[in-house]
């Protein structure tokens, strides 16, 4: 066995799981797990774990966008932060441009980190209120020894005008800006070190509708201009679908479906994705009459349901259970009601596997083909 930090992980993607988006991966995430201990009692004994991220694998291609979508608590934010090592991973591996990112230490880590940045959801709490905008953007430039003094100020001015702000604003403080402008400052700061990968964690969720599209277009322009890859994390499926080349849907710490944005909309394979798609309200006063409403309890990441984590809410397994023999079904209680589900969904975790459709369209469901 070779002496790397993660000897068991293979980076070779099986053909069936290769994403149908062109380009070489800039970031390869393999079997990533992030568990948080649950501590109780006087001695803070660990009594269990919240499995926030539980075996997640994907590639992000250079200059492309992978959208990561899911409900609150599904682990999507933790994925972004674990990749950047803002939260330590429990296990798994992240390879950045072919190099084992988790193995880096000290100066080398700093050098690599320059190329990987993050944009946060909340443009208020993610900017230091006591620093001028010029210093917020200029600090990383100085810390990484790229420029100082006048040269640094020129870079800051260039970044501000690139994100659509007056360079004269460099002397102002964050509270003098509106939400959309603050998000532009956050973007300028992320751009300061010329990254080629940015984690965008709900970058437009806190903004007004008319401002969201400005920021999305700006991110889109920057991607084309600078060939930046994005991991775009959001709960709004319409936004993710619009913005991403490829989309991964997360549920309770796992990816349950991944496909190109177009394919995912046209041909969803996981019943959870189907429910999400049906639930997005569309700006149409004559909506499709029927919407799927999920019943049952949302599982928790500290105590996820057995088998397929979605079986407690899954309308498909309940539907299929009606046609199945007594040996193949189990009765469960979820959300105070009793349901019959397929035994297989209750007992065994479905693998993420190729489904009928585009090559690379994978989903984790025992029922759909």
């Amino acid at each position: 066995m070779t002496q790397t930090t993660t000897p068991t992980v293979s980076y070779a993607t099986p053909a069936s799981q290769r994403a149908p988006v062109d380009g070489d991966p800039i970031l390869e995430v393999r079997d990533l797990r992030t568990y948080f201990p649950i501590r109780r009692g006087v001695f803070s004994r660990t009594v269990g774990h919240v499995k926030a991220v539980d075996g997640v694998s994907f590639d992000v291609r250079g200059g492309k966008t992978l959208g990561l979508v899911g409900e609150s608590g599904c682990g999507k934010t933790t994925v972004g932060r674990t990749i950047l090592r803002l939260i330590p991973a429990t296990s798994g591996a992240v390879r950045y441009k072919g190099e084992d990112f988790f193995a880096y230490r000290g100066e080398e880590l700093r050098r690599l980190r320059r190329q990987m940045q993050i944009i946060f959801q909340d443009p208020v709490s993610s900017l230091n209120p006591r620093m001028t905008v010029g210093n917020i953007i200029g600090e990383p430039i100085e810390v990484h020894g790229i420029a100082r003094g006048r040269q640094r100020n020129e870079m800051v001015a260039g970044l501000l005008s690139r994100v659509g702000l007056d360079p004269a604003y460099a002397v102002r403080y964050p509270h003098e800006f509106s939400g959309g402008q603050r998000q532009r400052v956050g973007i300028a700061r992320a751009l300061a070190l010329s990254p080629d990968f940015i984690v965008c964690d709900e970058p437009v969720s806190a903004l007004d509708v008319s401002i969201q599209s400005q920021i999305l277009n700006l991110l889109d322009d920057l991607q084309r201009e600078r060939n930046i890859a994005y991991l775009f994390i959001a709960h709004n499926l319409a936004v993710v679908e619009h913005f991403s080349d490829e989309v991964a849907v997360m549920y309770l710490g796992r990816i349950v479906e991944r496909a190109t944005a177009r394919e995912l909309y046209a041909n969803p394979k996981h019943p959870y994705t189907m429910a999400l798609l049906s639930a997005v309200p569309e700006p149409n006063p004559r909506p499709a009459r029927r919407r799927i409403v999920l019943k049952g309890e949302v599982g928790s990441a500290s105590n996820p349901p057995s088998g397929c984590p979605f079986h407690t809410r899954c309308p498909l397994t309940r539907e299929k259970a009606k046609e199945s023999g007594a040996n193949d079904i189990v009765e469960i209680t979820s959300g105070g009601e009793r349901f019959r589900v397929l035994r297989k969904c209750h007992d065994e975790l479905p693998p993420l596997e190729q489904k009928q459709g585009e090559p690379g369209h994978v989903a984790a469901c025992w029922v759909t083909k």
Partner: protein
Amino acid sequence: MASTTTTNGRPLLEIDNLNVAFNTDRGQIRPVRDVSLAIHEGQTVAVVGESGCGKSVTALSVLRLIPTPPGQYLGGAVRFDGRDLLALPERDMRTVRGREIAMIFQEPMTSLNPVYTIGDQIIEAVTLHQHVSATKARDIAEDALRDVGIADPGRRLGEYPHQMSGGMRQRVMIAMALSCRPRLLIADEPTTALDVTIQAQILELLRKLQRERGMAIMLITHDLGVVAENADVVAVMYASRVVEFATVEDLFDHPQHPYTQGLLRAVPKLNAHAQRLETIPGTVPNPARFPSGCKFHTRCPRTRELAASAPADQVVETSSGDERFRVLRRCHQEEPALREVLPRHGAACHQIAGYDAAPVLVPRSAHRREVTPEAVVDVNPEEVLKDRA
């Protein structure tokens, strides 16, 4: 053609020319200016707009929840079932709040008291407004939780807010608001903090309770999808005023105000990949620094486009932020009123064909929407998606 079902009689709630001001250290700001609106029994009227447009202040004014000072009602009336709420003594107002008009807020975590059980809080609301025994109040509370789809309501009454998920807490808020069977529910961004699957459940619940009880709903939101699927009638607010008013079908089929048009085009839609989003330039105006004339002229694509080919004496150069541009003099100087530019469809924009000849519109309509989405549970989701396509 849109069919209008007219319910007989007067609207349940009529807001008539409401004006609200806040007196601050830096002078007076006017979060609500000349707002009129009417809601009929069983109807959902949506008030749409972005932060600072005055939609929440309008809602709070209906319940007279604006602290005075610094707030001040500068005139107008809020008539509920014939009574002017703005003129009602505070003691009578207390029986209106919660009992006849209830409100649910965006944040289910901060609107519930963390040190009391769910049961204590609902029972308090019930005993405050209804003269019933403690046992009876508990039964009402239990029924209220059951009505909003909470399983095992008896046990849930003994739980604290932190023991529940966000969706569950929002249901508790709704249960509390509905426990006294109000005739009007004001829902201020009721689902903004929730996930889409939970949002769908909550909206379905509100539609069901409305059907069963004939309750009127004032739905305040910035989400045009939620509006399109739930409202009968829509008022779009911008810079403290109603700038467009129409039935939900008319508003989405042929929006008239450039702001509404811009908002509709700026929203990413499912299955519209990789098209560039259209944007509204500039930022949402701060009520402390509204521009002159039409408050939208600093961001309006229509006035800029028309100014490019207009005679020089009708054009002024102006600036917003760091940008300088030319707009029509009239848009810069004169604030337009809401006029009926199409049948029963009002918009406040000088540059709509026929605007000057159109009569001033009082936003009031008993219209009911044509298509109501129907929630389905326990069906094969593949089938549902098939009929969508």
